[in-house]
């Protein structure tokens, strides 16, 4: 189908608000009498709090309240931003208090102060006296599982938060049958989202006695529910407002600061309190990406057909459950849509340690699992002397594949075409020849890696999106959505879907960017690259209804049926003759003011999306390795995506650029470091944690193969997270090609590459 607005490089809806500084983020609202909240954090990685004396802090002039766990309901709650499940078996692990009674990481929140200003609050924190009984701690998940290891949560005496064994087919038989068996161990590091806007919220009690929270969140509806649960109050007593958000990448798909912010306002009789983290606090007491270690074995025939995969990941969860075991399980459900194994054994474990809690981060376990898988696959191809591209093409799944566990069907499969395109872009064959037998101190290498990714969470999670459309007198509309714009561009693409269906120019769709749990349609929020797909289905449905109502009024005027009419550029058209019947404005005016039939045109719908759509993509990269310093420079990099129909190419390219840049950091420089002697963070700031700057970023090639997926309301599939999955393993594989040296642990810093070069005798 040919679209008029879908597929166009339309300017983002919020671009002007953002370049003029008018866009207001959570920190940009001021209330009369606003107080400031700060938190006292544990200096120990693991310690029992024997006693807390807050009397001196309370006595400090300007201090309005001091709170510890003793002042709060003794309710354990879960923070993960998942939809609530009516089935208790499918709920997240409830393992934390708003302020803890036992420190489980350096930085754990022990007490909170509410004061007239930040300086007074900080002074008061120093006056709180805490008596700790320091306990042994553990940072390595494999050590945490050994007998006698420190127990982090009494409910899980072996520190194992979750484990599973999923077997498809007969692995034993396939490994027996195999001509060759390959083994490898692959490890990723702890990294962080590093959204530029740090978590910030403020809360007050309104005239109706309800708690209002304005927060930097991806998931306002879930914040409402979890604040209610954490405080033991009715969910309807809480109202959450989401203004403009300065990036989230999954770290704001977790309810971190809001329960305490609510507790703070309750402690001061409902006066407004702002609780904002510093960047240093953000690094240690929000969420991180799980470091994972993968033990992988593959059974292969001499012809290069992979028969069976045996994968055993160990996921380092840190001190609190957050999304916990769901992440390694979810990744396990997505990666098996890439290659066609006859059998597979997947045996993940998620383990508590005394580190910052790991949670959702862009692509939810897939950057880790595809680093392991795609490194391993390259190792196999290299050992077998087969071109890694050819080896992959031989083993790919095909359209029509059905997963025996989830039942998800591959309905569109553009990956082979993506690979062909990527190969051409990087000039794969030509450069493979050119870079044979390099001897110098600077060596070039080519690498590639593929991925598969789902769109939303169905069938593991439930997927509903809400949309409401109100038509104005001039024929323009307000589009209200529960989906949250956090920078990814959802407001714009959802507006494009509405404009397409309604035959409106995009500037006649006014999207309400702010979500308010009291007003906005119910939607779960920004995660799992779901909104364009799930919320997009809701917008399509709402727009279809408005369109029908408009055409009914117009049809009555002219005496035709509605399927003989169309709306184009805000005018009602008789399809056959392409003749204008009337303007949309005339219809809208009738809907408001007709003395007999007036009924303003609106719609208010929910889409319950009970399907999924597998998306695919590939990275091709060329690197130059400095053999003397171990530095890897990315020379060229291309991501080619099969994300179905691309609704806005400019925004889609932006997603690719950002995802590739994030993955380049994952590959080359980013890693949170902790002192092994104390468990304290060593680089929880932007100076020592090495994000990519513009100096480190090459031109990033973004390309698409658009195969419409029947499950997408306009043929779309996921994209936002997908972009950050395959660059890191592709870079690792390019290092392997350049040097012949496999490095199986991220990040590939100059130091690590240098040490590996030395060990392998290349230096």
């Amino acid at each position: 189908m040919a679209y008029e607005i879908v597929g166009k490089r339309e300017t983002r809806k919020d671009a002007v608000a953002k370049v003029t500084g008018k866009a207001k983020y959570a920190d940009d609202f001021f209330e009369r009498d606003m107080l400031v909240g700060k938190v006292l954090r544990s200096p120990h990685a693991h310690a029992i709090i024997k006693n807390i004396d807050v009397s001196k802090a309370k006595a400090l002039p300007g201090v309005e309240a001091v709170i510890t766990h003793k002042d709060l309901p003794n309710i354990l709650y879960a923070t993960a931003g998942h939809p609530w499940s009516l089935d208790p078996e499918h709920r997240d692990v409830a393992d934390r208090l708003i302020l803890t009674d036992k420190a489980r990481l350096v930085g754990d929140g022990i007490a909170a102060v509410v004061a007239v200003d930040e300086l007074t609050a900080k002074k008061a924190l120093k006056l709180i006296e805490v008596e700790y009984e320091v306990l042994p701690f553990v940072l390595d998940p494999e050590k945490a599982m050994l007998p006698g290891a420190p127990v982090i949560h009494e409910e899980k005496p072996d520190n194992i938060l979750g484990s599973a064994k999923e077997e498809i087919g007969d692995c034993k038989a396939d490994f027996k049958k195999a001509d060759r068996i390959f083994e490898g161990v692959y490890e990723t590091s702890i990294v962080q989202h590093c959204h530029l806007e740090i978590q910030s919220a403020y809360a007050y009690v309104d005239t109706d006695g309800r708690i209002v929270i304005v927060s930097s969140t991806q998931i306002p509806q879930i914040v409402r529910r979890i604040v209610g649960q954490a405080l033991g109050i009715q969910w309807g007593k809480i109202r959450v407002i989401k203004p403009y958000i300065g990036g989230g990448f999954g770290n704001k798909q977790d309810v971190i600061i809001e329960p305490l912010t609510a507790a703070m306002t309750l402690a001061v009789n409902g006066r407004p309190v702002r609780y904002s983290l510093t960047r240093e606090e953000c690094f240690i007491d929000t969420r991180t990406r799980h470091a994972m270690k993968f033990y992988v074995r593959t059974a292969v025939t001499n012809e290069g057909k992979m028969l069976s995969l045996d994968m055993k990941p160990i996921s380092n969860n840190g001190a609190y459950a957050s999304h916990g075991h769901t992440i390694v399980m979810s990744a396990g459900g997505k990666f098996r849509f890439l290659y066609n194994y006859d059998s597979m054994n997947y045996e993940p474990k998620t383990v508590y340690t005394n580190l910052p809690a790991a949670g959702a981060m862009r692509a939810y376990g897939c950057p880790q699992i595809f680093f392991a898988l795609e490194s391993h696959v390259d190792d196999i191809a290299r050992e077998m002397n087969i071109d890694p591209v050819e080896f992959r093409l031989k083993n790919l799944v095909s359209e029509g594949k059905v997963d025996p566990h989830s039942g998800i069907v591959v309905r569109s499969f553009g990956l082979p075409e993506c690979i062909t395109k990527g190969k051409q872009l990087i000039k794969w064959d030509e450069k493979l020849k050119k870079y044979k037998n390099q001897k110098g101190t600077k060596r070039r290498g080519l690498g590639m890696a593929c991925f598969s990714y789902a769109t939303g969470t169905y069938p593991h999670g439930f997927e509903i999106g809400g949309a409401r459309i109100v038509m104005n007198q001039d024929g323009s509309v307000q589009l209200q959505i529960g989906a949250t714009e956090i920078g990814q561009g959802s407001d714009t693409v959802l507006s494009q879907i509405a404009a397409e269906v309604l035959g409106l120019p995009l500037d006649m769709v006014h999207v309400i960017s702010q979500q308010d749990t009291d007003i906005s349609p119910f939607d779960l929020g920004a995660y799992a690259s779901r909104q364009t797909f799930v919320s997009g289905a809701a917008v399509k449905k709402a727009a279809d209804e408005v369109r029908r109502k408009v055409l009914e009024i117009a049809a009555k005027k002219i005496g035709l049926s509605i399927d003989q009419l169309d709306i184009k550029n805000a005018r009602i058209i008789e399809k056959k003759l392409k003749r204008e019947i009337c303007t949309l404005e005339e219809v809208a005016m009738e809907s408001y003011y007709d003395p007999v039939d007036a009924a303003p045109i609106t719609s208010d719908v929910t889409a319950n999306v009970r399907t999924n759509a597998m998306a695919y993509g590939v990275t091709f990269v060329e690197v130059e390795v400095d053999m003397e310093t171990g530095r890897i420079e990315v020379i060229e990099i291309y991501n080619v995506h099969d994300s179905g129909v691309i609704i806005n190419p400019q925004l889609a390219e932006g997603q690719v650029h950002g995802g590739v840049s994030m993955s380049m950091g994952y590959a080359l420089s980013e890693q949170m470091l902790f002192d092994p002697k104390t468990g304290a963070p060593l680089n929880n700031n932007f100076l020592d944690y090495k994000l990519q700057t513009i100096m480190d970023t090459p031109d990033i090639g973004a390309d698409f193969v658009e195969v419409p997926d029947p499950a997408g309301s306009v043929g779309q599939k996921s994209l936002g997270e997908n972009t950050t999955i395959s660059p890191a393993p592709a870079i690792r594989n390019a290092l392997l090609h350049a040097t012949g040296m496999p490095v199986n642990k991220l990040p590939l810093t100059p130091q690590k590459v240098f040490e590996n070069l030395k060990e392998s005798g290349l230096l």
Partner: protein
Amino acid sequence: MKKISLNVNGKPYSIDIDMRESLLEVLRDRLHFTGVKQGCSVGECGACTVLIDGTAIDSCIYLAVWADGKSITTIEGVSKDGKLSKVQQAFVDEGAVQCGFCTPGLVLTTTAIVESGKKLTEEEIKREISGHLCRCTGYNKIFNAVKKVLDEE
């Protein structure tokens, strides 16, 4: 407390401030120029950039007392008569904006480069704006926007 006089976006202000306050705090909390963003508070990310007498400075590590007698431009002062500046328009057109949190600082640094009249190579452009962190865009479209404005000059 100390009284300082400064000009913000063409308007004079005379205000009492705490000697310990940063210019960022005074602009945001006292004068409510909330387009000045706080991303790290220690001069690492560039989100709080403002122009002080035409020079791009991290306002989080610039004491407000030092701004006494100076002219400050924040993002709120860049567009004139409801019309975007060339730099702002280039950021909009090139798709250089995503979450928007780094955008005000980048627009101001770019404005300073444009107003300096310097001719820069691509490598020099990158160095000039490398003090700004952006986690959304991978910098590609930001670079295109900056280059577009400089090429048009």
